[in-house]
């Protein structure tokens, strides 16, 4: 459990008020430490024991772990149960499992598809994070061959899956520089796997099904032997088991400072169809997974999953937003259409994308609405005639275009009257409600010569 300022002051600080930490008193420093706002090393007079205790206190309750080396991902580091309490910081890595029993062409095919998969949303490129290579064959030569094949194709992070320490050792000989996650230490092989994790400096997944006490015991053995970077697999596979167990683990970490490590999940093992696998993975995005290993790759299922991950891991205090300004879509001329929108990224990219495919190069005036969508900002009084007029001036729109026609979003058709009053020499055109219909609208209504 987190220490209070008083506890820190009483038990760990020198109480000399020497001010070298930059605070007037040891107590003042203690209070900042309790809030995780300062680094304990600012006090030069800590005993070794105090230093260790305070460093532990300063760490997030769930350890942040790096997997991979060329294009590493960081997982864990979370501090809350619900995103509104602060935010979720490190989105779960989503990987695809490859079994070493697959023929090499299949392996190469999957790697190719997954590694090259990328989908754009709100101006961000979303993609998957790596591969889990499993020693399904039980044969170490086949396993190594598969890992080498993967490594020859991609530098994405790997999870290496085998319960056999000998096979794992061989795998790490060829793959350890990539800092893969070793999966997994179990009750039967723990000491050997711990040895490998320490030898090769790779993070270690601990698999302890059948109750968190068993898992906790294994983790304690691993940490006792010196392993710090641990990933948990509590073996909870189905929807209900996963939700219950992952929630309990998050609570234990946050409220009791126990088992504070990221969790790896295998939604394919807890579902009957690949659609269900995607839904379970979605549940795990929202509820506490650190790494999600899929058994199937299908763009139609991965795209919604990546979208959900982006949504859930967006900071609730800060919508993803655009810098206000006059944007060009394609290479507009002076007589090209002029549209106006808000600076919520989702809004901007919805309309910008449609303008782009409409065949009409255009001007897009992006108003500062503090990152709110069209209707939200209108309802909040942040997107009105006054604001639009101000933006038209601020970005000298009149000097870029030869006409005086302004297309407004259909959802705010009510602004038309006000705008006509404020801009008497302009023609205010009410566009369609949905961005997808802008192409058709322009075809029907935009005639450069009339504008």
């Amino acid at each position, binding site marked *: 459990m987190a220490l209070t300022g008083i506890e820190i002051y009483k038990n760990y600080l020198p109480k000399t008020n020497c001010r070298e930490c930059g605070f007037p008193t040891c107590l003042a420093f203690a209070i900042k430490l309790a809030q995780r706002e300062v680094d304990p090393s600012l006090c030069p007079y800590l005993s070794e024991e105090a230093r260790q205790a305070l460093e532990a206190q300063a760490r997030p309750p769930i350890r942040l772990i790096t997997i991979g080396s060329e294009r590493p991902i960081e997982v864990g580091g979370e501090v809350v149960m*619900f*995103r*509104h309490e602060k935010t979720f910081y490190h989105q779960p890595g989503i990987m695809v499992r490859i079994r070493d029993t697959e023929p090499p062409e299949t392996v190469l095919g999957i790697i190719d598809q997954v590694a090259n*998969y*990328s*989908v*754009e*949303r709100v101006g961000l490129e979303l993609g998957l994070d790596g591969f889990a290579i499993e020693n399904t064959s039980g044969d170490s030569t086949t396993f190594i061959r598969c890992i080498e094949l993967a490594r020859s194709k991609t530098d994405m992070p790997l999870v290496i899956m085998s319960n056999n320490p000998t096979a794992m050792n061989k795998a790490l000989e060829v793959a350890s520089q990539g800092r893969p996650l070793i999966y997994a230490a179990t009750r039967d092989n723990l000491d050997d796997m711990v040895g490998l994790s320490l030898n090769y400096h790779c993070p270690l997944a601990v698999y302890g099904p059948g109750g*968190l*006490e068993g898992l*906790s*015991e294994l983790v*304690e053995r691993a940490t006792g032997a010196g392993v710090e970077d641990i990933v948990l697999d509590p073996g*909870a596979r*189905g*929807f*209900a*088991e996963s*939700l*219950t167990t992952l*929630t*309990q683990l998050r*609570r*234990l970490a946050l*409220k*009791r400072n*126990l088992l504070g490590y990221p969790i790896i999940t295998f939604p394919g093992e807890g579902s009957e169809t690949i*659609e*269900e696998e*995607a*839904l379970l993975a*979605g*549940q795990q995005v*929202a*509820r506490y997974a650190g790494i999600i290993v899929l058994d199937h790759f*299908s*763009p*139609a*299922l*991965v*795209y*919604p*999953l990546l*979208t*959900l991950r982006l*949504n*859930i891991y*967006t900071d*609730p205090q800060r919508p993803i937003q655009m810098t206000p300004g006059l944007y060009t879509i394609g290479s507009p001329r002076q007589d090209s259409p002029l549209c106006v929108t808000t600076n919520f990224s*989702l809004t901007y990219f*919805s309309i910008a994308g449609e303008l782009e*495919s409409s065949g009409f190069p255009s001007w897009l005036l992006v108003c500062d609405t503090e990152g709110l*969508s069209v209707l939200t900002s209108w*309802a909040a009084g942040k997107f009105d005639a006054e604001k639009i007029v101000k933006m038209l001036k601020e970005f000298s729109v009149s000097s870029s275009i030869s006409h005086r026609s302004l297309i407004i979003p259909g959802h705010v058709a009510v602004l038309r009257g006000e705008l006509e009053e404020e801009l008497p020499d302009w023609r205010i055109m009410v566009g369609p409600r*949905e961005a*997808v219909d802008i192409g058709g609208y322009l075809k029907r209504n935009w005639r450069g010569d009339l504008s």
Partner: protein
Amino acid sequence: MPPLEIPREKWIGRVNEVTLGGNGRREIKIGGESTLPFLHFDGSIPNRPVVAIEVQDREPLDWPPHLVSAWGEALRHPQTWAKKAVEFGADIIVLRLRSAHPEEGDTGASEARESVDRVLSAVDLPIIVLGPEVTEKDNEVLVAAAEVARGQRIGLGNCVEKNYRTIAASCMANGHIAIASTPIEINIAKQLNILLCDIGLKPDTIIMDPTTGALGYGIEYTCSVMERLRLAALGGESMTAMPMLSDVGNEVWRQKEARFTEGVPPSWGDHLERSIIWEEMTATTLLGAGADIVVLRHPRSVEIVKGTIEKLMVRV
């Protein structure tokens, strides 16, 4: 080693239990939980969350072809549509009086009465009637619906800040449930519940609709507001303890991901598969945030989402 003690929440509140249906109509209870969604170890969940299927009072013209073909001829009339919805596993029928929208037909009380009556006679499931979300029209058609369905405990929405008096009066006079709808804001949701109770509605005759954002279109805001409402309810704040409804299909099927086959990036994958999972994933995510009723459109999502609820209702 000391035994590992799992931290449990000691909630003092409980979600109100609301009954829809009755008086010859099949009854269904929703809400009543004293724990967060599907966390059986902290409290009890006496009623599983349910899946409602949306039926419109006239053939929808803006649905993508594959959604239309999943229903076929049934879409022609609300009563055949509703019957089919029963076959597809609906727990509740949501009848949306869409033709009452001033831009989509501007039909009035008599048409509303007729549509509601047809659906009521066609099926014996509990029913929720939604207006076109234009306040004056909502009043007109919902009052008519309330009278036709007198005594059958149907849900009536949208009951919003602007028209709550009318809708509440109609609910009280005819024994119905108000669907109180607010724009993703916890205080506004609470405020509307207070207003409704102040003028005489019983707390257990209110269902909240805190507004749905679809996956990729504001779902994170909806999730957080629903989570906060539910946490407040379990924490003992009675004016947030109403069960929640999410109008999922209506939001999802407006989005490009659900509607379009052509002119979208290949990375969006197969259209049929993508559009359906868009609805399913929106629904399951919101169920995880506290929805007690999700309103869906595609028969396959109904099946899958119901199956998922079933799995999550198993105590582990």
